[in-house]
């Protein structure tokens, strides 16, 4: 697998179309999954995916170790998504303000949802909450790293995460009812 990937990467570095397509096919599903988590819609996810892969093919020379490539391409996709929404982190949506609440979190809500359903609900969050939530809950960043990545304070990061969770919980309950939340 690693040897194959190395050959693929060499082909891509030489600009061979066949290698580029093969590399895309191999990582497309995983990368699109990431894009969906960070995007507001399918169209946005496709835009991020497109921009991300253009960057990947343009910066492949940075990858010397094929084993590091999966982590690197994931990072490129996330950074592309962050670039798209970074400017919106400071915007405050009115409906989000209304949904701010402090409710007790219930893990059961998440347990009963499929990944696809969960992603669709995450997509409904405004960028300022979605980015913090994804970086913290999925990528494992701490608040200091998030604050550096997004250019916000640690306090804002914590606050946004808390609000994101609350909003998610409320929306899940609203959409799926008490059967799921049980």
């Amino acid at each position, binding site marked *: 697998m690693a040897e194959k990937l190395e050959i693929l990467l060499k082909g*891509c570095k030489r600009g061979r179309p*066949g290698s580029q397509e093969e590399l895309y096919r191999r990582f497309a599903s995983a990368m699109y999954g990431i894009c969906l988590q960070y995007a507001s819609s399918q169209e946005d996810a496709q835009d991020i995916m497109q921009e991300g892969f253009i960057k990947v093919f343009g910066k492949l020379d940075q990858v010397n170790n094929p084993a590091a490539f999966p982590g690197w391409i994931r990072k490129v996709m996330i950074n592309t998504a962050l670039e798209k929404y970074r400017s919106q982190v400071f915007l405050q949506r009115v409906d989000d303000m209304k949904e701010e609440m402090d409710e007790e*979190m219930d*893990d059961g809500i*998440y347990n009963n949802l499929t990944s696809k359903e969960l992603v669709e609900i995450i997509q409904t969050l405004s960028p300022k909450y979605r980015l913090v939530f994804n970086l913290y*809950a*999925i990528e494992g960043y701490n608040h200091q790293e998030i604050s550096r990545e997004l250019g916000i304070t640690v306090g804002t990061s914590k606050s946004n995460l808390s609000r994101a969770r609350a909003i998610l919980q409320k929306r899940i309950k609203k959409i799926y009812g008490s059967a799921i939340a049980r």
Partner: protein
Amino acid sequence: MNEQDNSRQGFLSEKLGSFQADPPEKVWTAISARLGTGGRKRTIIIALSAAATIALAVTLGINFMERDHRESGVPQQVEKVSPEELTEPSEHLSALSESAAESEGGKQTEMATEPAAEARPGIAAGPEIGARTEIVAKPEMAAEPEIVAKSEMAYTDKRVQRKIVTALNRTPMYVEPVLPGISGKPEEQSIGLPGDTLVPSRLSPDEDLLFESYQETDQGRRDPRWMIGAALSPIYSFRDAEDQAMAVSSGYESGVISYAGGVHVSYRTTTRLAIESGVLFNKMGIDIGATGIQMYKQAFDFAPLREEASGSNILAISNSVGNIVSPSGDIYVNSYKVQEFTKAIASYQDNSGTETYADQGIRQHLDYLELPFNVRYSLIDRDIELQLVGGMSTNILLNSAVTMQTSSGNREIGYLTNIKNINYSGNAGVGMVYHVQDHLSLRLEPRFRYFINSINDQTLPSTRPYTFGIYTGLNFRF
């Protein structure tokens, strides 16, 4: 961060970290288009840069040539003749006549003034007139700026030339002395030079030269004889081969669409005939669409091939052009002919030993540097010129690599042997030239090129590539 947070984070990370979804196909279409477009853009930028450089060089060259011409070749328009010359009208006329006879080199004006210096002893002009009196060739003074301007246009417009010639024949030539306080027509002047005496019955030497030049060319616009240009074309290339060679590849091989381009320079020998040479790069080739062609490593433990493979370091398959040699010792088989192996072995179908295989076959690249020598004949000579083009080219082989198109991309698998490095081709085409400006024209030229000799050596059946392209480009005449 409490335990609940940690637990929730781990759960979400696990659940969403591995989340996958299939993107729509249009995403890859857009990505590949942008990747491809980037390449094309770079190519176009390079081509435009080259064309712009050539255009700039030619323009500067023309500019400098014209400047040199103006500085050295344009005759003085105002002749200064001493007053004493005026007393010797016959000498002056004689001088004019002599200068006319010797004016073929365009030095008539200097000649006209020289004899007058010798006539100086007979000074008759009084001091009130001044030591020297300027005699101005009036028609030249009045009309010459226009004439010079048009001659600088290299007589590019027939109608303008006709006007010039008509004007020259119609306009009487006379010499008007510029004397202080005296004005009037030449015949009224008191210096004893009747105006009609100085009116030549023929054109002045300058005008003679202009008229002769016009008569000689008879095609004013064609006077610039040199032309340089750049052309680019998509080309379709394939090959014509003997039956024996066709049998090897029948049904598998097809033509390739690629490109050709370069620069050319031509010299117009007559009004309608021009010879042309230049340098062009031709990217040619043959697609060998043997989908599923399989490649075996020589070292692979593949029983039917093991013994033979170990006995040779270079193994090859053949296409209609020649033998494809794999320096690594890889063996390529399917129904394709494999050198040094029996048909039974070559057609052995067992994918267990396949190292890789061609998804879209293989491509035989044939890149040539073309040095053409063509003759152009103008059938229609208007603003849109129609030319017949024919000639021969020397073609120098630059690349004979063979690539295999696999799922992991194009892979160079070897090169062609038994092929000649120097080849000759015949060229034929129809050129359409649109003269945008005096020195600038656009060209559209469908052209066919057929190799006269077989590009294989004598050990293989004869194969002759051919190309068809529609060349477009810019030409500059000077």
